[in-house]
């Protein structure tokens, strides 16, 4: 065990995978010698050579196209997109290629070895183009998995699981927590299951669901609510596609109330899918409407970032409103 921040945990996962399996290659813009603009790939080129950890030109569509090909030919490529905001030039390669490779070929070929890493979310004064949370787009793409860790321990275990998973995975890292989130992490290899939610806190009055950097926000809000005597159950979804509906439904059947929190804009955010499905699953158990506390339906702002964010206060107020419905 070592004390690590989330970035070091990512680096440790990559290091672990590269040491074990020489089909693992890491690449992206500034990923080589420099170790990436956030330093997630630090020292990997030194350790494993330029052929296995390298810079690419600035072309996200090329990076993912290249990664698809390498994966189809038997490698385990880990492609870094410098910011999730810059993943869109690769959207076609992901929607039409990555996600459909196995299906369209009748399983003659697949790109299951592929993992796409990208830092996402606000909190660094990054405005429109260094803050987006685009995960919902990816949950509408059958054929890929979507994973978001909330802390260093989760990050290493989930990333290793993603790397070895037989399906392609888009792995969004909460950059706000890169250095802020610290914890004890095992130095050896371990994996955490994909597709399984994690119950972070038990409670009886309301279920709170989030992922990544919003999980600590839920905890803050739950602490406030606790003082009012409200017992919150907190679920970290961890995998968004396929998501763990049973875990959420089971909890809601117990608590009768559900709140979903995400940074992304509200309309067609992933909270919509959870709410739509859970109102079907738990119709007779719901004591108040499922509530979404989310970013606004605007581009991600700068001067008003604080106002935009679905913070602990908005969450706390929404918990109260749900309880008082």
């Amino acid at each position: 065990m070592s004390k690590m921040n989330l970035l070091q945990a990512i680096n440790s996962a990559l290091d672990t995978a590269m040491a074990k399996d020489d089909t693992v290659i890491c690449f992206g813009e500034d990923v080589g010698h420099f170790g990436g603009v956030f330093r997630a790939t630090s020292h990997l080129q030194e350790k494993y050579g330029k052929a296995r950890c390298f810079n690419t030109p600035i072309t996200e569509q090329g990076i993912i196209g290249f990664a698809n090909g390498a994966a189809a030919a038997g490698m385990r490529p880990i492609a870094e997109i410098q910011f999730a905001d810059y993943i869109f030039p690769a959207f076609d390669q992901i929607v039409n290629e990555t996600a459909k490779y196995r299906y369209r070929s009748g399983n003659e070929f697949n790109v299951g070895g592929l993992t796409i890493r990208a830092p996402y979310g606000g909190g660094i004064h990054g405005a429109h183009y260094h803050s987006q949370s685009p995960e919902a787009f990816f949950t509408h793409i059958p054929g890929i998995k979507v994973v978001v860790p909330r802390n260093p321990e989760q990050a290493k275990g989930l990333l290793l699981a993603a790397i070895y998973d037989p399906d392609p995975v888009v792995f969004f890292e909460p950059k706000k927590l890169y250095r802020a989130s610290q914890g004890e992490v095992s130095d050896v290899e371990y994996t955490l299951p994909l597709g399984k939610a994690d119950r972070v806190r038990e409670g009886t009055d309301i279920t709170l669901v989030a992922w990544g950097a919003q999980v600590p926000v839920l905890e803050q809000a739950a602490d406030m609510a606790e003082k009012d005597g409200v017992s919150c159950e907190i679920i970290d979804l961890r995998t968004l596609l396929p998501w763990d509906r049973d875990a959420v439904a089971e909890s809601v059947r117990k608590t009768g109330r559900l709140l979903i929190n995400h940074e992304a804009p509200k309309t067609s955010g992933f909270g919509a899918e959870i709410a739509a499905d859970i109102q079907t699953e738990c119709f007779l158990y719901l004591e108040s409407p499922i509530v979404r506390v989310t970013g606004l339906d605007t581009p991600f702002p700068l001067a008003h970032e604080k106002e935009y964010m679905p913070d602990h206060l908005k969450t706390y107020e929404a918990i109260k409103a749900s309880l008082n419905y």
Partner: protein
Amino acid sequence: MSDQRNTNADIVHKARFISGHAMKIPTLRVLQQNGKIYRNAELPDIDQELALKIYDTFLFIRALDERMLASQRQGRISFYMTETGEEANDIGSAAALHPDDIILAQYREQGALAFRGFTVDEFMNQIFSNEKDLGKGRQMPIHYGCDRLNYYTISSPLGTQIPQATGVGYALKAQGKKNCAICYFGEGAASEGDFHAALNMAALLKSPVIFYCRNNGYAISTPAHEQYAGDGIAARGVGYGMKTIRVDGNDILAVLLATQQARKLAVEDHEPVLIEAMTYRLGAHSTSDDPSGYRSRKEEDLWRKKDPVARMRHWLEAKGWWDEEKEKSTLEKYRADVMAAMKKAEKVPAPPLEDLINDVYETPPWHLREQLDALKGHIRQYPDEYKKTAWRLNDE
């Protein structure tokens, strides 16, 4: 690391704009239309066996394309694309490769697949989307793919296979294999951003790939001069710092020669190569297209005279390797083969309902299993409305 640009060489003091047509790339041609080889021409590595295998594949593809076109008109299949007039490109280049070299095609390269041994039944099963289709009936006709033959499954979105080929080549190199990838695409697809990414990355990462552009004059209705303003696609290779050659794509020997040498550069020196082949799409773009709306019969006739199959046949006959009799019997045999296989494939049932949700992931997750179960229940309720799949459920 560090700045390795040379910014001091070749300094000039007057503004001279380089013309957009500064680069004129010649075309390699070995064989004349009459079957005679140009004097002093360089020859590819080819013996009688290889020559006849190529020509045999030409005739098979002619029989296949002809029959499928007719079948589409009869309504037996929904869609088809011929490669008539362009056979020397995919078949000639495939003939220059090792079977373990990986092929990433656009969609008009069934000849390369046939050359590798895709059986007529395999073609038919794909075209009829039946349960024996390697692709499990999921894609439109002509979207072939075959792991056994190292032919990656075709995907309609244009250009996507080009950066993938760069990745495939890189993987082959990383795995220490003495192989390369070949990537086919049209001059239209070369306008996509993926093309740019692919060639730049390949040149930079020294990925062993042969980028083979079939410049056949059209992208559906759009003529090449409305696709680009430069000297074709070849001039771009130089911009990427990539070895480049232009060939007459209706000349089997030129294609074979260029690809054999390109393969050497790719496999031995890890040098990617761009080949631009000047050819012509004699047929319609697809069975959904009617070229009379955008080009003249006269133009088509001009190109019909440059037919690559006839050109090779003249050469073979001059060599004494081929004659009218062989021509007739081979064509007849392939026509019969295709017809028989078609009749067989037509009767093979559609894939089972499970194949609707299989292979989205390696193992179907809960939501797909749930959707399949619901669907089965529904079909059992209305078996007459979903005849293709209902009969199987009754068996369960």
